[in-house]
């Protein structure tokens, strides 16, 4: 069994695809219309054959209250690995990304948390040298 795709619930699938590809720099993999919504996945350009992220619509009524509560407390939905958090932070801020938490030393790693504009906070983490 392999982990082929992980889910992120998003407010708007097209807006999410735009942010995750054009702002974060992931590459689009699947985009299959399925009635009202689509099966849309992206992957890291550094590992396009590895785990994909499925940008899932929030069509169940339980999802929005849940994700809103996490965002309210500043809790990231998931974490992506980067080589250097400070460099990535500066690159994303330049592209207009809003951070709820600037690079913070957390012992073995440095972390930062940003808003993905479609209803989630995402953590980036990099090992400290």
């Amino acid at each position, binding site marked *: 069994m392999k982990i082929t795709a992980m889910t992120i619930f998003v407010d708007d699938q097209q807006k999410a695809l735009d942010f995750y590809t054009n702002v974060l720099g992931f590459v689009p993999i699947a985009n299959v219309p399925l009635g009202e919504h689509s099966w849309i996945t992206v992957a890291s350009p550094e590992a396009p054959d590895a785990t994909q992220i499925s940008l899932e619509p929030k069509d169940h009524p339980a999802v929005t209250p849940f994700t809103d509560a996490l965002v309210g*407390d500043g*809790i990231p939905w998931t974490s992506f690995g980067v080589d250097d958090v400070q460099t990535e932070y500066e690159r994303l801020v330049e592209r207009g990304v809003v951070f*709820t938490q600037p690079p913070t030393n957390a012992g073995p790693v440095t972390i930062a948390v940003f808003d993905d504009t479609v209803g989630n906070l995402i953590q980036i983490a990099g090992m400290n040298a």
Partner: protein
Amino acid sequence: MVEIFHALADGTRRAILDELAERDEQTLFEICTRLAMKHGLNSTRQAISQHLDVLEKAGLVHAEKRGRYKFHTLDTTPLAQIAQRWPPKETP
């Protein structure tokens, strides 16, 4: 004034104030991360949330909802009451 002393009587709450003194506008997540990493405090997120309520009641922390997230900020103004009640003696 009772609320201030009650709030300050707890080590975890004092550590929260230390962290907010270092950087304002922190989310609950950031406060929990800092307490765990820098102070070795492994309280639950719910416990930290309750500590923040006590600090808010004492007026030492303000929670402000901005956009979708809630940020916490330190306010040391209430501490002035302590020095007002027991001012330092003037040296002759």
